[in-house]
């Protein structure tokens, strides 16, 4: 996994609550057996019209949000299905950090597994960023994971909490499986005292 470095990028708003993973990547794209190729299908049903043309009503299709790497969204982002295709699609679409008042549990774990940072800010802080992203073209922000802060181009800043283990893994780009497999002795010792159930 790539280490998560301090990043600055354009902020795109998604002013909705409960954006579920069925919206982020609809089921018809889950048949792929690769980890890649999902970005073009992100938010498919919202993003494209019947004839396949981009839906001009969909916020991420607006010219001014092209190239955004930070998404600001409403509460309970990523709810529903456990499909990891959701962070894969968001990552390929260009997002590196997501900001919302809350995220669903499984989705949060899936983001961390893919070097993507889900940042929980207060509703007020999210509202501030959402408002600016909606009003001002070119609104950008800097995410500093080391310092646990989000600072926008106007100098407004907020800090966030993150599990220290997750932070370290992201900063170093650690391979979680590799880390666990180093604990072979512990796992083997546990298994020795824990008979299988059938």
């Amino acid at each position: 996994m790539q280490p998560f470095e301090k990043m600055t990028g354009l902020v795109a708003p998604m002013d909705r609550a409960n954006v579920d993973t069925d919206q982020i990547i609809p089921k018809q794209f889950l048949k792929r057996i690769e980890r890649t190729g999902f970005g073009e299908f992100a938010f498919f049903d919202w993003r494209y019209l019947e004839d396949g043309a981009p839906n001009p009503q969909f916020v991420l299709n607006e010219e001014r949000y092209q190239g955004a790497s930070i998404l600001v969204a409403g509460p309970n982002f990523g709810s529903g299905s456990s499909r990891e295709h959701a962070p894969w699609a968001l990552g390929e679409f260009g997002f590196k950090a997501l900001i919302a008042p809350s995220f669903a549990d499984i989705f949060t774990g899936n983001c961390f597994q893919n070097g993507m940072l889900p940042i929980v800010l207060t509703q007020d802080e999210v509202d501030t960023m959402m408002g600016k992203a909606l009003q001002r073209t070119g609104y950008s922000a800097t995410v500093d994971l080391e310092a646990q802060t989000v600072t926008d181009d106007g100098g407004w800043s907020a800090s966030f909490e993150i599990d220290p283990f997750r932070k370290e893994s992201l900063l170093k780009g650690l391979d979680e499986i590799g880390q666990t497999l180093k604990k072979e002795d512990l796992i083997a010792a546990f298994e020795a005292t824990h008979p299988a159930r059938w």
Partner: protein
Amino acid sequence: MPKTMFRKIWDSHVVEEPEGRPALLFIDLHLVHEVTSAQAFEGLRLAGRKVRRPDLTIATADHNVPTSDRHLPFADKIAKQQLDVLDKNTADFGIRLYDMNSPDQGIVHVIGPEQGYTQPGMTIVCGDSHTATHGAFGSLAFGIGTSEVEHVLASQCVVQARPKTMEIHVDGDLPAGTGPKDLMLHIISQMGVAGATGHAVEFTGPAIENMSMEGRMTVCNMTIEGGGRAGMIRPDDTTFAYVEGRRHVPKGADFDRAVEEWKLVASDDGAEFDTRIVINAEEIEPTVTWGTNPGQGVGITGSVPDPGDYEDPAQAENAARALEYMDLRPGTAIQDLKLDRVFIGSCTNGRLEDLRAAAAVAKGHRVADGVRAMVVPGSAAVKILAEKEGLDKIFKDANFEWREAGCSMCLGMNPDILSPGERCASTSNRNFEGRQGKGGRTHLVSPEMATAAAVAGHFVDIRDWEYRDQ
């Protein structure tokens, strides 16, 4: 100190839990299906890793299998490829697979309990959010993503931060005409779709204790729709009677010993939860969702809400958006909503008891003109048992389609989908936009309510239903 069931199971599976860090948790049962596993196996191959415990890993094909004639060549080439890849992966890594043509195939959360893989006190994971279902047996079961699937395949462990605990205490008995599905739609409408986020939830109270195992599975299954990490119910005599005699459950004296162990799993008296919610069962009606998340539900005697009535502007906006997608007008009586399609099935309500309940409603009636209704058993075994009882005949006589087992129109990865604008009464668990087909409009209900709606052509109050025994 008295311990919760969650805590007991967690503690007894910790391989390592350093202070202030997530635990490394050992997994007793890893369930695998075709949609979330291909990339995990590929990851193993690329890193030259093997599956640590193929003996604790079980795979099935459920999400994209067709539910019509399986002897025909596969129409969907990409779906076929995904199934072929599952065949190859499980063969290469030595994992037991119940493929599409196996008599034991079915929805992963239906076959685990059915075959006795799911037992009290276990830790169970699957690359699927509805893994919570298995908590009905007093196990700790939760959904994981594909990277974690790879992690479990490689190490038989997951890295997990300890969730908080929540007790949802259901006071009183469920009124006639209401069941586990109504209970859950009601609870989620009360606490919200993120109400249990970050929590492992234990359900308690007389309504839960009196519930069958199948009903308990419905309850735990829907916990994820309230944001819960896991749903759990203490194992009791109902649980032990259900598991006894199933294929992978210990027999004879071993079974008796297992029961003694399983009894110790229950939360101790006085165990404290981080959060506690009390629900009064008596006030629950047969419930129907009107919106685009499972928390947007209302009793059958109610009507479509007016977004203007919400105090919270964010909720009002959600409601307005949902009504637009669902093409509903505020104030419309729920019973006036006309349906195009009805789907009975899924890991929420596709078990034998659900089909029996639906058949009792369907018996002697016919699906209304203009409505297409399908019954999709949760597993091949459910289908066989239902046919032994003649349920298939009742459904077919009433003009319901009787299909092969799988997830089917719960998520419409196979050809079973809604067309844009179609309105569907569904016994599944998610009414998200496009879930059952782009532009499709899903109303979540119990099996009885779905069946009655199919016959009437619109939603009806099951408490007024004319059951025809002949």
